């Protein structure tokens, strides 16, 4: 079973990440599912009628604006990093948290590596599905890379200059 980082701990993964081309007919009724955005857009009624947990995942070029009105239906919003150097979803996560006040889980999926975790966390990600070949326990260390930060961000609404003494 895959393990993910949630908060500051490693836990067992309980969600099923469904591929891009999944069809409605293939879905189980009671599992916790992360569905691709197009499936949600096409079949929201059917998805809401299921018993299991529901989350949605967005590709790097899919905008959070497209789910802004639906957020109350999702326990998880997962944001995919096709390569770790594609930084678009850092902005997406902040928008989810700061503009749309989304309180559920914001999860990083895809090419997720430990050296990015600190920044991701600051932008509002609270769960990290590390790339399968990496050790999540070691990665926990990187959540502590810096002991001081200058900017206001999701984790800290005040910039250092309002906290400095």
């Amino acid at each position: 079973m895959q393990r993910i980082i949630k908060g500051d701990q490693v836990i067992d993964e309980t969600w099923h990440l469904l591929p891009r081309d999944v069809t409605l007919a293939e879905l189980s009724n009671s599992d916790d599912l992360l569905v691709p955005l197009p499936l949600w857009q096409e079949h929201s009624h059917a998805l809401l009628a299921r018993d299991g947990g529901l989350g949605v995942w967005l590709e790097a070029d899919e905008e959070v604006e497209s789910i802004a009105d639906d957020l109350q239906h999702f326990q998880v919003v997962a944001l995919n990093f096709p390569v770790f150097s594609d930084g678009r979803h850092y902005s997406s996560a902040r928008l989810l948290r700061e503009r749309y006040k989304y309180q559920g889980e914001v999860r990083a999926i895809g090419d997720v590596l430990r050296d990015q975790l600190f920044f991701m966390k600051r932008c509002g990600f609270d769960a990290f599905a590390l790339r399968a070949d990496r050790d999540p326990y070691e990665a926990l260390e990187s959540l502590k890379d810096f002991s001081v930060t200058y900017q206001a961000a999701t984790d800290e609404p005040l910039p250092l200059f309002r906290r400095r003494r």
Partner: protein
Amino acid sequence: MYIYDEYDQRIVEDRVKQFRDQIRRYLQGELSEAEMLPLRLQNGLYIQRYAPMLRLAVPYGALSSARLRKLAYVTRRYDKGYAHITTRQNIQLNWPELEDVPDILAELATVQMHAIQTSGNCIRNTTTDQFAGVAADEVVDPRPWCEIVREWSTFHPEFAFLPRKFKIAINGAREDRAAVGVHDIGLNAIRNEAGELGFEVLAGGGLGRTPMVGAVIRPFLPWQHLLTYLESILRVYNRYGRRDNKFKARIKILVKALTPEVFAGKVEAEWASMKDSGATLTQEEVDRVSQYFQEPAYEAFDGDDASYLEKRRTDKGFDNWAMRNVHPHRAPGYAAVTLSLKPTSVAPGDITAEQLEAAADLADRYSLGEIRSTHYQNLVLPYVQQRDLPELWQKCRELGFATPNIGLLTDIICCPGGDFCSLANAKSLPIAEAIQRTFDDLDYLHDIGELELNISGCMNACGHHHIGHIGILGVDKKGQEFYQVSLGGRSGRDAAIGQILGPSFAAEQMPTVVQKVINVYVENRTPEERFIDTYQRIGMAPFKESVYAANH
């Protein structure tokens, strides 16, 4: 000069620790080459033709004698005893060992220096006017604002993986010595009619493959909103800048594709929800930072120093130097002095460990310990008393800093080119040297007057060839090194991109080509005209005719 408090210091030290661990994991094979690449780039570490190259940040060019001495030590201990000042006011080491880089960074942290975000697709070093705080034409001292932007941009969590690198320049004087028009964001610090301080905001300038001058997207931004507005621009760019093609990924392409008006609209929309948030600047913070940039306690002088003026009248060599390398200062009896790093036959911007130490001594003796790097790849002593100038000149001559060529044709801006850089189409340093040799007659050089000649070894434009009055670009012509010449580029208030003269030339033709261009200018100029003025008046045709006529 800004001095770190415990917070600033901790961030830099945390970084050293983090990078040490990243290098360790890389050397142990836990991080692949591809994964390490952006990590090391964001720390200024390139793997180059012969060795790694480490680019150190010099935020807005602010150096001190202590920093120079530490740099001298580092170049001796870990490199080949010299360093290189870049066109973005930073400093490069050309020969460090990968394994040593964490130790180098630890050394530098002791003098509040680092290599954070000196490369990679992130917000780079914020640059400014090398005469900030002492220039007579200054409206607002840009340095506190540079520092505020430095802190905001350092490890900004949202913008570590932008589509492409991102450069900000701030100018606060009437003249623009920071080239704000060719930066991703350019800020002109201004006062509005009510006397309130704010910024004119330009976006979408840049050089490289598609050179462009930035467009004004906001004529006046009140200072309180500087960071939230920058954040809005960066967010729009981070989300919508192109990532499919590295050559179309700079913000300039996005601004152009959307048009500056539409781009500005998107920024304003983003800003609407961020404006007045906690990130809004406070007077307290501006005061905190500004205290480090107070005017020093100037000695009171009554106008220009008499002995200095006398020396200028009687010593032609001194006068030549004073004319070019000594700059007006706002305090009577003071001057700013450029140490030229452009003597003939030295790579422009190169400085030896001995020179670094000597410059530190000069800074201590003559300039309150402060010294600056310039984007023209020279050093500046900002607080020199005029009465010390004759003595300083003597010392500069002994140290190789006195070449009286600042702002002249031989004060060439030049990238490392094919001698060091693996992306180069052609060598650039030998071309610079050949041109310097051609124009080694001082009287003639001074007679030609102000002229910027910039050389890049490829279209990445590290040598800013597009904005040189004369620009030279290395091109590859069927596997041979050739050079394309452009005329009429300029930075400053009326920034413009140079126009290409015509077909390219072989290396050995270059001194003659430049000579011909200069001849056309000298034959056509009116008494007040600089090269760029004459070019503007008579256009490309006469230059083209002359250069290519004898070329059959």
